[in-house]
């Protein structure tokens, strides 16, 4: 089955070239058919790859440049169940977004579809690559497509600002990543990940390796919008068209974390001492989850709110990875799955609201979508899934992370997703039910709106949103999925078996027989999930009816929470120079922490 991995990249990239090249020559329905067929075929092949990677890594050496005597000469794709599973989610989300944009972006040129397909191919390549420099190339291809997609609607200033901030912050990250590659190559003479890990395993972590590691991992964390590198995310999501947001928020931002996990478990685990690398990641994850959850609650622009909700869940996933255990990684995987589908569904609903009412502002939309029961139900269900209510949406992933986390970590992670969920619940109640006050100074000033109403095929868009949300909700109760996620995580963490398979072609031990049942979760997780739901509902109601709170409560709230909220608003300044400064400072601090801990 080693013929599949290159096709996951080749099909979308070729289709992108065909669509862009044959624009104006072929009739529009044929173009649409090519685009959707390419995305669907990629997704189907990804599922086939998932099935065939169960027993061993599917390894493809480009151009037939096999290893010689355990030394990698060529460039490879090495795909285990985790990477193949990622390709499946990426394929599903991009296919849904492409079908959605058939009517949502009807007036857009074909270049839009071509860029989406290029992003699809690049993301699949990134998830499968077994070569460090190759990772960089896929990362850049994906990023350039994303910058262009973000700034696609350039008739207004907002998209230009969003795309500029996105492009410059992420490019700075990519260049730091490139320097990291050069340093690591200087030390090891290798670019293949398996080879790099083998070479580093024979020595101590010198200063050079720590610097290289910092630059490489921080490069991914910038892509992954982890605090303090997250500042670009809200600006970019706020202005991108809804289907682009679904891809960006659902899969493309989160994929940076796969890079972190891949580099850690195949390369830097060899130089880690007592899990020090993971500790720093865990801290970053916790701060990200709570801070971004808070920021989500302070937004009135639906897409910015969703952007911060994405960042907050990325924090939870990063914490899961930072625990360095099998269950933590499996939990991060399951959250990725559920979160990608749910977030995409919520962005689809936001797009429908935007198309119907020409507004995306919570307060301006108040009560205007009364009676739209299907989108309202999709919004509510998606929100509940993102909070982690027991046995719904991201719950299973959260509960797996709970298992390996220290007692003080667990409530903080739940707090992050509950805060983000409360924001989304508040917005849903205000927009679809007309609850709450008509104005709230806490949420800042209104945004410049795009009053442009779209002529859309509404039932199709609603259907896609419902499919995405429904699939995301079901993740926690699919029988056998939890066990397979754990097995995939175990395989992903087994560096020895990965190296033996990639470099020496040694087969892996056969997979155990995995049961097909819903994974059992602990009582603690049930309580935390229930508690998070109650907290989110209470906070949402408090946000809706802030004025009706007793005077002493609101006065005390203003005294204690007012100054930090103003600081948070001020820090998210929207100026790209500040963002780059944060990137540099964040990288330096993270690197210093690692240098001290790994000394």
């Amino acid at each position, binding site marked *: 089955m080693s013929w599949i991995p290159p096709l996951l990249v080749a099909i979308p990239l070729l289709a992108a070239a065909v669509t862009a090249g044959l624009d104006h020559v072929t009739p529009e329905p044929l173009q649409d058919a090519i685009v959707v067929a390419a995305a669907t075929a990629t997704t189907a092949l990804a599922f086939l790859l998932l099935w065939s990677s169960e027993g061993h890594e599917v390894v493809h050496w480009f151009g037939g440049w096999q290893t010689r005597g355990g030394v990698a000469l060529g460039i490879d794709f090495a795909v285990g169940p985790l990477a193949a599973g990622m390709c499946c989610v990426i394929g599903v989300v991009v296919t849904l977004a492409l079908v959605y944009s058939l009517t949502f972006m009807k007036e857009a040129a074909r270049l839009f579809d071509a860029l989406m397909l290029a992003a699809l191919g690049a993301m699949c390549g990134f998830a499968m690559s077994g070569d460090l*420099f190759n990772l960089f*190339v896929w990362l*850049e291809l994906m*990023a*350039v497509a994303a*910058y*262009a997609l973000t*700034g696609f609607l*350039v*008739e*207004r*200033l*907002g998209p*230009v*600002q*969003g*795309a*500029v901030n996105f*492009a*410059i912050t992420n*490019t*700075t990250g*990519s*260049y730091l990543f*490139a*320097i990291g*590659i*050069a*340093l690591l*190559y*200087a030390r090891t003479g290798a*670019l293949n990940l398996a080879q790099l890990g083998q070479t580093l395993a024979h020595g101590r972590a010198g200063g050079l390796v720590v610097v290289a590691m910092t630059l490489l991992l921080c490069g991914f964390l910038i892509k992954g919008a982890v605090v303090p590198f997250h500042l670009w995310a809200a*600006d970019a999501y*706020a*202005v991108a068209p809804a289907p682009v947001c679904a891809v960006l928020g659902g899969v493309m931002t989160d994929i940076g974390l796969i890079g972190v996990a891949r580099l850690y478990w195949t390369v830097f685990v060899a130089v880690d001492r007592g899990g020090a690398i993971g500790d720093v990641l865990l801290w970053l994850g916790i701060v990200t989850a709570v801070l971004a959850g808070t920021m989500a609650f*302070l*937004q009135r622009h639906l897409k910015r709110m969703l952007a911060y909700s994405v960042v907050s869940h990325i924090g939870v996933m990063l914490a899961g990875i930072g625990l360095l255990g099998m269950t933590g990684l499996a939990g991060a995987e399951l959250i990725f799955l559920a979160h990608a589908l749910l977030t995409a569904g919520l962005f689809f609903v936001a797009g429908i609201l935007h198309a119907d009412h020409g507004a995306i502002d919570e307060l301006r939309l108040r009560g205007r979508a009364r009676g739209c029961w299907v989108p309202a139900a999709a919004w509510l269900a998606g929100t509940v899934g993102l909070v982690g209510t027991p046995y719904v949406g991201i719950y299973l992933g959260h509960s797996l992370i709970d298992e390996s986390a220290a007692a003080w970590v667990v409530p903080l992670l739940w707090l992050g997703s509950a805060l983000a969920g409360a924001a989304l619940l508040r917005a849903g109640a205000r927009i679809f039910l007309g609850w709450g006050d008509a104005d709230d100074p806490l949420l*800042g000033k209104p*945004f*410049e709106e795009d009053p442009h109403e779209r002529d859309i095929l509404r039932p199709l868009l609603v259907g896609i949103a419902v499919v995405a949300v429904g699939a995301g909700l079901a993740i926690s109760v699919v029988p056998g999925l939890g066990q397979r996620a754990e097995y995939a995580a175990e395989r992903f963490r087994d560096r020895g078996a990965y190296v033996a398979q990639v470099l020496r072609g040694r087969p892996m031990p056969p997979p155990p027989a995995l049961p097909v049942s819903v994974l059992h979760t602990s009582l603690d997780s049930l309580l935390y999930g229930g508690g998070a739901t109650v907290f989110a509902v209470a906070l949402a109601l408090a946000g809706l009816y802030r004025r009706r709170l007793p005077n002493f409560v609101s006065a005390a709230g203003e005294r204690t929470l007012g100054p930090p909220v103003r600081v948070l*608003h001020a820090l*998210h*300044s*929207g*100026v*790209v*120079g500040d963002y*780059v*400064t944060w990137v*540099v400072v964040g990288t330096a601090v993270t690197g210093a922490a690692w240098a001290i801990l790994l000394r």
Partner: protein
Amino acid sequence: MSYLPYAVAAWICVVGLFGVATSRNLIHLAICLTVTQSSSYVLLLSVGYVKHGGAPIFKGTKPGSTAVDPVVQALTLTDVVVSVAVVALILALALDAHRLAGTIDPDGLADVQG
């Protein structure tokens, strides 16, 4: 092996980042990004340099003769291509910014914040 090329690479990188962080003009900013990027070219080429090594073309040379590392040159070329695409995109956005806001100062574009 001299440390000079590495010091030069580090200096270029820091100068470029300083420029990106403080720039008040998008075109200037794009150039600063390419400056940052050039530090990785210098670094890569100095990593692969071998004293008295020839070009890595082995046609007509005797077996065993020293040559510089061809891999880093390929990496540098790829880097250049990548950076061209990114800079082209940022310059296009700068044009749009000028058309819409009449300024290419990134601070002047910041109408969304928080």
